[in-house]
């Protein structure tokens, strides 16, 4: 099938437009997403095509936006709620944790919540401590929510389509730093199943298990280390919940060494969870302790000199891999 080069942001936009055309119950709900087209122009053109009743501009009331979307999802709509910055999901947390996550379980499947919450996360542009966090571990902690985090344009489109069609609440994290990165997207129908990781690069010596924008870092590190005769396999986690344990474990059992890479905080976070999985279920295959690289445990600072220090870097990741290989 023919492919086009599409930015991450436009790939999501394509998914939204296609699903809205196919299913009149899909609506978008969020701040500034209507005629303005979104603060990142991530909903550009949808208001013109689908009108105010399906691209719903809201007041700045995140708790109620999320809560109402749950009620709407229980009664026949498929809302895609947008929370402008991932930092603001905290305002909708009660709704996600205490309502959305539990409706199917508490009603024994009588009600479902086919809701997508999309939100832009990550460091970049000196937006400071309240507009830069990657809080995906918060929602991944709660049984009943699904959590996806695409790293490239094709997966962004395919996972958004799958999320909209899913019968459960799906939180869809988009790294702001990926928004304008182009990648190949195939023409025609493209759906990526939730709960499936991808081996993005095959290798023999070390597995880097990476999440979201960190997959790009992992691929660059793999390329660099190939020149040092270290063969790195890159696993793109894609879905945090459900986690594709099989693909991760298979890779680690093959390479016998693992680095887990995430832009969220290290403490009580995604890297620790995946490292524990590997330690518990692939211990006998390991030739070195599982390592992890994540954001240091500090608020994301504003200054141009401090901000880069909280993003896991290629140099740090390469150093960890060399350490795993005992070649440092």
């Amino acid at each position, binding site marked *: 099938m023919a492919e086009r080069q599409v930015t991450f942001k436009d790939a999501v936009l394509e998914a939204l437009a296609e699903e809205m055309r196919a299913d009149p119950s899909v609506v978008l709900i969020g701040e500034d997403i209507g005629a303005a087209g979104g603060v990142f122009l991530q909903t550009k053109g949808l208001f013109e095509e689908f009108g105010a009743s399906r691209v719903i501009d809201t007041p700045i009331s995140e708790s109620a936006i999320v809560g109402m979307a749950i*009620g709407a999802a229980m009664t026949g709509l498929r809302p895609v709620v947008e929370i402008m910055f991932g930092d603001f999901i905290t305002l909708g947390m009660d709704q996600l944790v205490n309502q959305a996550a539990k409706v199917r379980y508490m009603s024994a499947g009588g009600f479902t919540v086919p809701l997508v919450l999309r939100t832009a996360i990550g460091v970049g542009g000196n937006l400071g401590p309240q507009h830069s966090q990657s809080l995906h571990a918060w929602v991944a902690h709660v049984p009943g929510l699904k959590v996806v985090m695409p790293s490239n344009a094709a997966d962004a489109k395919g996972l958004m389509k799958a999320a909209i069609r899913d019968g459960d609440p799906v939180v869809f994290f988009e790294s702001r730093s990926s928004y304008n990165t182009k990648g190949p997207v195939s023409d025609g129908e493209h759906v990526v199943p939730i709960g499936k990781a991808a081996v993005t690069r095959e290798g023999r010596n070390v597995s880097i298990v990476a999440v979201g924008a960190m997959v790009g870092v992992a691929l660059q590190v793999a390329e660099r280390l190939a020149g040092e005769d270290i063969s790195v396999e890159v696993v793109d986690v894609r879905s945090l919940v459900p986690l594709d344990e099989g693909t991760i474990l298979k890779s680690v059992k093959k390479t016998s060494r693992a680095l887990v890479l995430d832009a969220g905080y290290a403490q009580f976070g995604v890297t620790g969870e995946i490292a524990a999985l590997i330690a518990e279920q692939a211990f006998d295959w390991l030739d070195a302790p599982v390592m992890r690289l994540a954001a240091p445990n500090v608020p994301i600072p504003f200054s141009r000199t401090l901000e880069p220090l909280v993003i896991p870097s290629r140099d740090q990741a390469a150093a960890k891999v060399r350490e795993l290989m005992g070649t440092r």
Partner: protein
Amino acid sequence: MTTNEKLTGDFGLSLYRGMVTIRAFEERVRSLSAAGQVPGLTHLYSGQEAVAVGVSSALQPDDAITSHHRGHGHCLASGADPVRLMAEILGRTAGYGLGRGGSMHILDPATRNLGTNGIVGGGVPLATGAALTAKTLHASWLAVAFFGDGAMNQGIVFECMNMAALWKLPVLYVCENNHYGEFTRIDDVTAGTLAGRAAVFGIPVAEIDGMDVLAVHAAAQDAVARAREGQGPSLLVCDTWRFSGHHAGDKQSYKDDAEAKNWAAKCPIETLGRRLVANKLADADSLSALRKTIEADIAAVAEQARAMPEPASASLEDHLHG
């Protein structure tokens, strides 16, 4: 029935039956709880029956409701099966949530009940969102949120009222002011008025005697008509009183005896009964016989539910994801 229509015997008796059923159910839960048969905490609706029954009798079967932690009355008034309701309250597998939800988490698609709710104010966004569905899909049904006076100090309620008023959503907000949130008097924690909270959004408010089922019904009829005509939300503030403690077993030492006695005299069931008798729509003996029959039915319901099995361990993860 609107304010000016005449009360008929059939309708009056259906309201009476509805309220007595709730009372009998709640008193049965109370005795089961006292006997240690009810897991966890359960909040009884005795005293507030006129609100659930008065509002529900103004609704159509496809109208949606959300309820709160004191929610058995709303479930029954919306047509819940008392056996499945009791089974859930007792944590049995035949319950609405297979025994995983309990009293504060009863959801039933068949009666369009989006749930009792353990989060104070939690049902308000759900009902408002349901109303958004109705509006978006051009459906004729509406949504009702029942909540306590305590929920009127939750910010999300105002966020919802703002959007409901702005978008003229077909939603009816029903505040049951029983004057207490747990052990705290509402006046001690509330600036301004309950009615004023909706008025700022231009939402019409009716302040009604929540012990008078006919008054509640009439006000609900008006609000429902407004919502169906596309005129948007309304708020009913129903003045009421819980006859029992915050939860079954609470001794209510924080309540004033004289005040409690005064409210007891306003019992919504007695009040309607007297009115039916005065209007010659029923006689006292037949009402008392009806009460006895319903109490016996509910006792049988409780026995049936109690005999049901607890969920199997293997069901722990059922219905987590689709």
